């Protein structure tokens, strides 16, 4: 509900009790704009009892019914009005919480017809309350991530906002939020998996999702704040931790046709002396590069080594990034991707942490699978000139045709070519394509990064 509706509701009370000084403050009834007065006369139903027998709560309840209740069903019956007032618990003129309690109550009615059915105006009021919260994060996503890759031509931001508001409000009203189904896309852990280890209930996808209902509203907190905390949680772009909190909300799992994903990435901390130039979220970080580090340990601006002590959450569209194992150098305490058989690029020590962590890198040349299939599988680590020469020799010596051609195109040539395009250009069917991928993986395993499934690891060691 908005200010105008609040004004109308309590104006009705003031109309009902024009002589009561407690109920006529703070704004006088006289002097109403003509159109508002006309609206009140035609839309708000009369009180069922005559003043002074009517109570102040009844005037407010009737006003609520007139604003949010069903049309063409007559006056609200006494029992329905009593139930509404019991749910709203009006205490004083201008009791905004009472109006919110009444609206939530009316939107969650379960009858089929008349006043026992959900009130259209109440459902629409909640829809509008949610809709107020949705545009800012969606606009930020649209500005920073662009259109979703698989969106149809008719995709429009304004309509996405309306749609998200409708679904989020529907989930809050009915309590049917299953956003934890997408916990893998947002690196949210499952309750049982972690609870057994930690012996305390952690904040997981399931525990977050369980609060996405008006039944969890304490009826004291402002309703708009409750909606914000469940649907959005954090301003995207305001702080580097924005995506980390946002991913736990309802909107992250729904927005942009459900194509968002989130994870931890490595962001370059090279000191530049100028404001951060990396891609989002860069606000609040000054004088460092903040470019995203790719799997060859160079950031998108070419800085090396990048000296990263902690990982940064960010959002992307499903399929745009893949997971790669990382380890922390125990000597300098920085994370790096290239820990296999190498010393630390910063301090030259060969003292890697025993347990690897994982970070995401942009999918440019996913190996084993194409980008469209999953963003959770490991991706290629990119090429330095030395590594390119090393790979080329190995391909020539270890592989036969057509796997040799496949490997050259896949690992050495056009870096934006993916498996699908290569297979199509080589007229490889699905089986031949899989054989080539497996052959490349088997023969060049020592030169390619280990996928996380094959790495000997226990718990990820990130964000110590």
């Amino acid at each position, binding site marked *: 509900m908005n200010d105008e509706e609040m004004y109308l509701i309590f104006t009705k009370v003031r109309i009902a009790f024009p002589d009561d000084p407690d109920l006529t403050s703070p704004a006088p009834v006289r002097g109403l704009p003509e159109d508002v007065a006309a609206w009140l006369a035609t839309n708000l139903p009369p009180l069922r009892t005559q003043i002074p027998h009517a109570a102040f709560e009844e005037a407010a309840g009737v006003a609520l019914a007139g604003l949010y209740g069903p*049309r063409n069903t007559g006056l609200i019956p006494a029992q329905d009005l009593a139930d509404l007032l019991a749910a709203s618990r009006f205490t004083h003129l201008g009791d905004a919480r009472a109006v919110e309690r009444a609206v939530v109550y009316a939107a969650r009615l*379960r009858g*089929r017809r008349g006043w026992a*059915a*959900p*009130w*259209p*105006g109440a*459902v*629409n009021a909640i*829809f509008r309350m949610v809709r107020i919260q949705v545009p800012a994060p969606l606009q930020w996503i649209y500005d920073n991530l662009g259109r979703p890759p698989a969106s149809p031509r008719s995709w*429009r931001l*304004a*309509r996405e906002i*309306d*749609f998200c*508001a*409708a*679904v*989020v409000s*529907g*989930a809050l*009203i*009915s309590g*049917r*939020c*299953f*956003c934890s*189904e*997408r916990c893998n896309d947002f690196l949210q852990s499952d309750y049982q998996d972690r609870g057994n280890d930690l012996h305390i209930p952690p904040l997981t996808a399931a525990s977050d999702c369980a609060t*996405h209902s008006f039944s969890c509203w304490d009826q004291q907190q402002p309703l708009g704040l409750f909606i914000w905390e469940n649907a959005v949680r954090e301003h995207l772009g305001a702080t580097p931790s924005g995506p980390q909190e946002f991913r736990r909300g*309802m909107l992250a*799992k*729904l927005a942009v*046709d*459900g194509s968002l994903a989130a994870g931890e990435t490595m962001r370059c901390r090279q000191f530049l002396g100028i404001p951060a130039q990396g891609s989002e979220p860069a606000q609040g970080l000054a004088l460092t590069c903040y470019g995203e580090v790719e799997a060859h340990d160079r950031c998108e601006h070419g800085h090396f080594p990048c000296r990263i002590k902690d990982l940064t959450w960010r959002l992307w569209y499903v399929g745009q990034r893949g997971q790669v194992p990382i380890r922390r150098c125990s000597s300098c305490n920085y994370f790096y991707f290239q820990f296999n058989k190498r010393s630390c690029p910063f301090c030259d020590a060969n003292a890697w942490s025993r347990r690897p962590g994982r970070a995401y890198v942009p999918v440019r040349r996913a190996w084993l699978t194409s980008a469209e299939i999953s963003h959770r599988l490991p991706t290629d680590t990119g090429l330095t000139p030395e590594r390119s020469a090393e790979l080329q020799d190995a391909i020539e010596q270890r592989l036969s045709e057509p796997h040799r051609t496949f490997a050259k195109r896949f690992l050495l040539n056009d870096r934006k070519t993916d498996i699908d395009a290569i297979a199509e250009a080589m007229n490889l069917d699905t089986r031949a394509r899989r054989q080539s991928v497996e052959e490349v993986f088997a023969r060049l395993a020592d030169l390619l990064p280990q996928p996380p499934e094959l790495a000997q690891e226990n718990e990820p060691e990130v964000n110590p």
Partner: protein
Amino acid sequence: VKPAALTEKHLFAERLRPLLDDFRFTWCSPAVRSDGIVTVSVHPTSSDEGTPELLVSVFDGLPPPPSVHGLPWTIRRADTGTIVRVGNTDRGRFWLAGLAPGEYRLEIESLIPGELIEPRATAAAPQTDWSAGQITPAFAEVQYADKVAEQEFTSDDPDQTVRSARITQTREGRLTLDVEIQSDSELWGKQPLARFRIWNDSSELLAQGYIGLYSLVGGRAFGKLDLDGFAPDLRSWLPARCYLRIDPQDPRRLVAQDRDDLEQSLACTDDPRCREAVAAALGNLPPSGQRPAFGEEEV
């Protein structure tokens, strides 16, 4: 064994249909029906240019499940029943714009599969109850009940080609026939027309017509026809046993003798998407030819 997705869809459809019974809304005003699980809502919004729009949403959980995607919907004038908009839902949503002020009725096809019935068997085997393909005699009397009455049939071939053939008696007492087909199945072969036939115990063909189909997501197709208008005598036949059969119809195999049936089918079809298929078949009718006799053709 029914696939799990079908069962979930069945449950969803069971919930959706009562909510959409005589669902009316006024242009630019909110409306909502909910049973606590499935919610159908109409929200006033505005377009980028500021013109008023209505967002119609079918909610069955966040994120939207597949069951709310691709449902055919129809908007009719509440007073005249004239169709003003048609379309399919996109993840449970669609927008309406440019409607004249007034009251409208929302129809969304729930696309429910019915009981497992093999229509072909009904012609050969003696039937003892309505569940084997017989049209229920309950339709013999016109009912103006608050609740719609209906009966459904489904083929039990491996592809479940006829996902649903449903006879419905509306609140106004009219009988309608709608079919949902797995159009890309081998049996159906993506034919744009469904031929329905009604016959009695003596294998006398009482009525035969065509339902124009339009495509849905997942290789399915849907079509609807006013059965009362097509066969005004249907109710008088029902005290005797009558059976329903649905077959694919290749428009190229239609002959001039089918013109009357096609024209009558077209006259009893008001959905523009269904009319398009029937009208196309009518326009391509050959000048003359012979049609196989009833019972000779293959299903």
